[in-house]
């Protein structure tokens, strides 16, 4: 055969089936660009120098992995769809006298062109978008935005290799397909008379059980620790349940509807139900995919957004001053605590040595532990073994410290009397399991409390409660009682809070200098001294929250693209299937208006079903998400609820827009 025929045929094929090929190319370009950008961040040496950049490295390598796996699965999916559509064309070539070898050559050329356009296009798009991506990443991490425009040869090579590899595999898959299948089968590959699906009760039952199990797990977790353990299992169960739901349960429901004659024999239901039933088998997996992708987008976005928005509050709690100095001492081992004047003098001198002034300085002792329970009785034994979740974190301080922090006279308290802030209980009894160990009477509930970081600052999570006890003697007794109740105790902390002069960067540098360079010997009896700055906490927290949000949005967009593409492909392939049916119905006397209406209701149901199911998934996920967010000290329910609702609304709007756009393509095909 003439040389150059095959490349020419390949180009012609791509142009002729552009309705299928164009989105496929876009998919390759999109995923390749996404992969390049995340890989470029992962490989960027400059990124490592940044504050909080260790998190970026972790997040970007997770991102690289997920995007690569996703790209492989998704390109295979779109390719198989494409091939199914084209089997008739290839069968025709075969029958017209082309050998399978020739068809293979055409496919080879097509793949080459596809790879060339996809990878080059993807890399160009990736390079162009890289600035935007890094810009938004820096903003999310609350870092200074760097200047310059970089290329990452390493990421380019990785992208080319990965996508070249994936496309090669799809080519091999396609070649295998044409060598195995005979031409007649290829020719009819598009409309194999599909049998009506059977009701698979076992699968339906499995779907209901797994979905119920997943939801049940989500509803039953008691605390963050459990939530973390259970989360993965619940996700797997819900995914299995979703697939079963769409394949078996939907068919069972449709058949039940069909059995109801009064309902079934009405024009719209009649056409709709039979149509859905007929296509449910092939559609179920696609719909389940859309549903799961949508759920993932929603969960990732709402979760990471809630975390990010809650972080400001968390930083405020964890860092009540510019510089936080915590000195731990152990009264059980006889340590008497820091020499406060000496410590303060040393700190002021060191700050001055860095050219800054201390503008405010205060401090107090406290002791913290967590207890599980409600209404005045708290078990320390389980509270110590599991620090997360529906716990109350108690921070104890002395009346004297309280008075000096509030500038008020020292409250008169007896040994077993306390002021209690944060929880409304009248008395506090701390137990080891069921056995009471020690208790206090709350004589007063102050309306306000001074800002100290306390248990939250130490990373304990839960409902915070502040307890003011009589004096240092009672405070020093607490570790002993704690040990008796829970077999473990922590040290007492003296927390010194300093506000400094200077800019944010200067404060960061002072904190860095103090924590690394300064010698604190001769400042009393203590075991550990730890210095941290608000800037450092800020960077760390936004490093994590910003990294999560970045990854959430990044993958969210990618998954959204996938969902959109699946919707698009479904619409056109169904359009071609439905065309003939509606033509027949028109001949038998179905009005054009009625045709439109029935298409609308059928397509609407089929496409909004996944969205509705996704919304239900998200609703059940909400409780789990709240508990997981507690790990990061984000405890407010309302902002999280608003985030989830907002994400759902925005996603719903995008989904509807995509639906409307692709529905037009569908109508165009059907009514031609």
């Amino acid at each position, binding site marked *: 055969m003439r040389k150059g025929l095959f490349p020419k045929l390949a180009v012609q094929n791509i142009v002729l089936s552009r309705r299928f090929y164009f989105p496929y190319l876009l998919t390759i370009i999109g995923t390749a660009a996404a992969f390049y950008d995340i890989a470029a961040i992962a490989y960027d040496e400059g990124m490592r120098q940044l504050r909080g950049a260790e998190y970026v490295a972790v997040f970007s390598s997770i991102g690289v992995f997920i995007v690569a796996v996703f790209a492989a699965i998704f390109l295979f999916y779109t390719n198989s769809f494409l091939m199914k559509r084209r089997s008739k064309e290839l069968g025709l070539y075969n029958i017209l006298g082309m050998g399978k070898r020739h068809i293979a050559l055409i496919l080879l050329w097509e793949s080459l062109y596809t790879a060339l356009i996809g990878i080059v296009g993807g890399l160009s798009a990736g390079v162009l978008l890289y600035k935007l991506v890094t810009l938004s990443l820096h903003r999310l991490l609350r870092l200074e935005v760097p200047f310059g425009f970089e290329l990452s040869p390493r990421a380019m090579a990785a992208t080319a290799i990965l996508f070249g590899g994936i496309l090669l595999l799809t080519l091999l898959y396609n070649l295998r397909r044409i060598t195995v299948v005979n031409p007649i089968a290829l020719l009819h590959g598009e409309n194999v*008379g*599909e*049998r*009506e699906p059977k009701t698979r009760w076992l699968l339906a039952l499995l779907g209901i059980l797994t979905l119920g199990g997943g939801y049940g797990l989500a509803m039953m977790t008691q605390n963050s620790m459990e939530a973390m353990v259970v989360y993965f299992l619940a996700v797997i169960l819900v995914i299995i349940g979703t697939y079963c739901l769409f394949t078996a349960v939907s068919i069972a429901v449709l058949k039940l509807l069909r059995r109801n*004659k*009064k309902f079934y*024999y*009405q*024009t719209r239901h*009649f056409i709709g139900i*039979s*149509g859905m*039933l*007929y296509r449910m088998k092939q559609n179920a997996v696609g719909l389940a995919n859309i549903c799961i992708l949508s759920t993932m987008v929603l969960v990732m976005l709402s979760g990471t957004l809630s975390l990010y928005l809650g972080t400001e509050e968390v930083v405020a709690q964890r860092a009540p001053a510019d510089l936080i100095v915590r000195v731990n001492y152990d009264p059980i081992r006889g340590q008497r605590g820091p020499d406060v004047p000496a410590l303060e003098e040393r700190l002021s001198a060191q700050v001055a040595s860095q050219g800054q002034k201390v503008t405010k300085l205060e401090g107090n002792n406290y002791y913290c532990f967590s207890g599980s329970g409600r209404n005045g009785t708290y078990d320390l034994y389980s509270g110590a073994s599991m620090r997360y979740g529906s716990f109350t974190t108690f921070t104890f301080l002395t009346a004297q410290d309280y008075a000096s922090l509030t500038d008020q006279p020292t409250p008169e308290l007896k040994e077993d009397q306390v002021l209690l802030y944060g929880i409304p209980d009248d008395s506090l009894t701390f137990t080891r399991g069921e056995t009471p160990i020690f208790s206090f009477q709350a004589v007063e509930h102050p309306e306000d409390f001074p800002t100290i970081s306390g248990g939250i600052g130490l990373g304990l999570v839960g409902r915070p409660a502040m307890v003011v006890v009589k004096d240092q003697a009672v405070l020093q007794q607490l570790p002993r009682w704690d040990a008796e109740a829970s077999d473990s105790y922590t040290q007492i902390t003296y927390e010194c809070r300093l506000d400094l002069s200077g800019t944010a960067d200067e404060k960061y540098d002072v904190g860095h200098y103090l924590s690394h360079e300064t010698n604190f010997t001769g400042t009393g009896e203590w075991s550990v001294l730890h210095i941290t700055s608000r800037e450092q906490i800020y960077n760390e927290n936004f490093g994590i929250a910003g990294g999560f949000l970045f990854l959430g949005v990044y993958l969210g967009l990618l998954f959204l693209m996938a969902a959109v593409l699946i919707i698009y492909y479904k619409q056109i392939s169904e359009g071609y299937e439905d065309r003939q*049916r509606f033509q*027949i*119905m*028109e*001949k*038998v*006397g*179905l*009005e*054009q*208006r*009625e045709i439109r209406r029935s298409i609308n209701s059928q397509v609407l149901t089929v496409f909004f079903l996944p969205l509705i199911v996704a919304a239900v998934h998200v609703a059940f996920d909400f409780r789990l998400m709240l508990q997981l967010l507690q790990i990061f000290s984000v405890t407010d329910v309302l902002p999280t609820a608003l985030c989830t609702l907002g994400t759902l609304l925005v996603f719903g709007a995008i989904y509807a827009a995509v639906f409307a756009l692709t529905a037009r393509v569908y109508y165009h095909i059907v009514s031609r």
Partner: protein
Amino acid sequence: MTLLEVNNLKKVYTTRFGGQQVQALTDVTFSVEEGEFIAIMGESGSGKTTLLNILAALDKPTGGQVRLQGRSLSEIREREMAAFRRDNLGFVFQDFNLLDTFSVQDNILLPLVLSGKSPREMEGRLKPLAARLGLTALLPKFPYEISGGQKQRTAVARALITNPSILLADEPTGALDSKSSDELLTLFADVNRTGQTILMVTHSVTAASRAGRVLFIKDGQVFHQLYRGEDGDQRFYQRINDTLTLLSAGGEHRA
């Protein structure tokens, strides 16, 4: 009583870019009496299908008119058209045009569902009709499970269930083997005997020989017509064949 009147029907197709005009029907005039079984014959491109499409109100004539039970089809508004077609016309197509998403029963019931009839009434009409066409056992099956002849019988049942004033058939035996064709034509003859008017477009002399009257169309005009009279199928077949030979020889004879 005259059921269908076709007067000076004309149809001109204009090619897409407005260039050439193609005359599909030049001047067709004939009428159909109630209870008749008419076959329309003609070569490919003679205008048969155009004629049928106009009779079925799927297409509009360029000139002339069609009256069904005294009512002109062109008077019927677009929105009523579907309902009119459903209630007055029954269709049988060459390639069956059954919907593979529906069972045989639902395929037959389709026009009734579209008219919004109650399930009880549907049942009442379906049972005797299915029994008459030998479809009772096939009702729960799907189109891909039954033979071509059975599919065409299903299509006939779908056409008859609305008690149409006229049954229009477009090459109904075109996709069937000879045995199934024979059965279908016998069925048509039976249905016709109960008073059902049938208008069938066909290529097949065998099919045409079962009708009561045959119209020959050539170059967009009714060229000739034959009445069965007292002839048996065999004799009528012979006469139709002779006419066709004459027709293809290019005789300038007009009915």
